[in-house]
């Protein structure tokens, strides 16, 4: 429904769809880049960009070669394509069943170990499944985001997958709202994976309610998530003013 409203919004805004052959295409407005990434901009300037993806089961794919087909690897490949003269490293920490509280504790060690310019924090599903208090979820996000900011890393939140089959069973709305709210509060970007997948399902890019044991659908979805994430990061980086404090470091 949000998509329908977004589409109406587009009509009002007079924006047009960019019609391309890109299979991952989403409409303008589904994904909003709101804030700059000064540390990423500085890292690109220095030709060395380290990124950490901190996620759960939905940041990984099972099976042989799954890691290479999951979105973090696709994201890394897309970045390398777009920034050929920058040394890019994407480190992924994806453990199943974690809540935001479990993950937030790992952020400080990760920061001191890997010194990434950017952390992509995918979370929310574990909390929604376990019915963690949205307030506690919000507090965990607060902790993690402020730890990253204090250590001098940019951070992007990534929300849950859109899953039509389990929609009546997992209540995502409060957790989606909390993530949107925390992102606004800390002026960080939210990669709205939920909205993207919802959009794809609605326009028929992917049939997300299909039952299958095969991994090809999952691989294609991850491929597109990885590509869009790379575009998202680069677009946000462009928002960074050249005289931004962090780029001077």
């Amino acid at each position, binding site marked *: *429904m*949000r998509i*329908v*409203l*977004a589409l109406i*919004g587009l009509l009002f*805004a007079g924006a047009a769809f960019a019609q391309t052959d890109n299979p991952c295409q989403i409409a303008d*407005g589904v994904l*909003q880049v709101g804030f700059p990434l000064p540390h990423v901009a500085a890292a690109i300037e220095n030709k060395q960009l380290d990124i950490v993806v901190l996620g*759960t*089961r*939905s940041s990984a*794919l*099972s*099976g042989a070669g799954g890691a290479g087909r999951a979105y973090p690897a696709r994201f890394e490949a897309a970045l390398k394509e777009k920034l050929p003269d920058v040394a890019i490293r994407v480190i992924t920490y994806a453990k*199943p*069943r974690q809540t935001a509280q479990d993950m937030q504790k790992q952020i400080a060690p990760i920061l001191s170990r890997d010194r990434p310019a950017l952390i992509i924090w995918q979370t929310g*599903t*574990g909390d929604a*499944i*376990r*019915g*963690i*208090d*949205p*307030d*506690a979820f*919000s507090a965990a996000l607060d902790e993690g985001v402020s730890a990253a900011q204090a250590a001098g890393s940019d951070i992007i939140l990534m929300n849950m*997958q859109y*899953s*039509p*089959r*389990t*929609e*009546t*069973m*997992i*209540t995502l709305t*409060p957790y989606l*709202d*909390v993530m949107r*709210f925390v992102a*606004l*509060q800390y002026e960080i970007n939210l990669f709205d994976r939920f909205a993207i997948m*919802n959009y794809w*399902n*609605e326009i028929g890019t992917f049939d*997300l*309610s*299909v*039952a*299958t*044991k*095969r*991994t090809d*659908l*999952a691989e294609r*979805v991850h491929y597109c998530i990885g590509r869009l994430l790379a575009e998202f990061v680069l677009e946000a980086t462009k928002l960074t003013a050249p005289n931004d404090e962090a780029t001077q470091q």
Partner: protein
Amino acid sequence: MHLPESERDLRLDLFRGLALWLIFLDHIPSNIVSWITIRNYGFSDATEIFVFISGYTAAFVYGATMQRRGFVVAGARIFKRAWQVYVAHIFLFAIYMAEIAYVVAHFENPLYAEEMGIFDFLRQPDTALVQALLLKFKPANMDILPLYVALLAGFPFYVWLLFRAPTLALSVSVAIYLIAWKFSINLPAYPSGHWVFNPFAWQLLFAFGAWCALGGIKRIGRFIRSPYAVALAATYLLLSFAVVMTWYFPAYAHFVPKWLTDWMYPIDKTNLDVLRLAHFFALAIITVRFVPRDWPGLHSRWLRPAVLCGQHSLEIFCIGVFLAFAAHFAMIEFSGSIAMQVLVSILGVVIMVAAAALLSWYRRIEDRSSGSRSKPPSASPAGSPP
């Protein structure tokens, strides 16, 4: 103290019926028709309407019983009602279990390995089932009925106090709301967290409905009909509409000043945020102003379906929850197209109306067969209790 005029206030039935439809539409995920429901245009949603009207009608029905037959009989009837609501909730839980058992057996997709974690509780059905019976384990969209059980459990004492000291009774309710808010008091849930509808917060709306029913509306009637109140309410509704629009058009979110967002968000449904409460009051003021009690439209054929549904709220609510499951299931199995979304939405409402008509017919034949004996409480002036 006397009960107010005993002629049935059809507005209660009408708006409760409409609220039931909206709750049904909101419970179907990814449904374009839910675009019309009020939650998209302001802070509050159909839940507030439903809880308030249920408090109002419960006070009307059981207040009359308490006056005629005393505290013990009224209390016993209220507890019987709480038991019925509890049983209805367990019935819905059984339907939910059937649905997820089906999904577990038939749906597999490597993309959603993480989401399948929702079925982990099936590995310990002993714990999950006991927690469900204790009203601690409540799956998605099954939170309203446990709230009613809790509200009804405290209701006899509230009505008793309401007859003796209405202002004190309402003050107690406000105090509970404030204390729960200040000290974050809520009931625990399983496997973690708290009740989605905090009964210590939501009791305020239920209690306020009851207070209005037992004479309160007379006291505040002059205020809520005054042009100032109406203007204030309209202004608040417009402001909240503007804010809510920025949720759907994030491009305009920067028009909302930062101090306002810092103060306002998150708007907490669990603890009945005061902004939601104010939004409901504003809606109520506008409604009372423009839909008078004797509005002829209330008897029109066109509004009859909603009135009927409002008169059988518990049954229709349960049917609505079940139909929302079924509608979502049909959308996934057959087609999620917009045409399908509209079809299942309309079909669902039609089934709710048909069921309500059937229930009315049952009630009529039962009234007839009970003949000259005293009328059962279900035939009381303000329709069925919650």
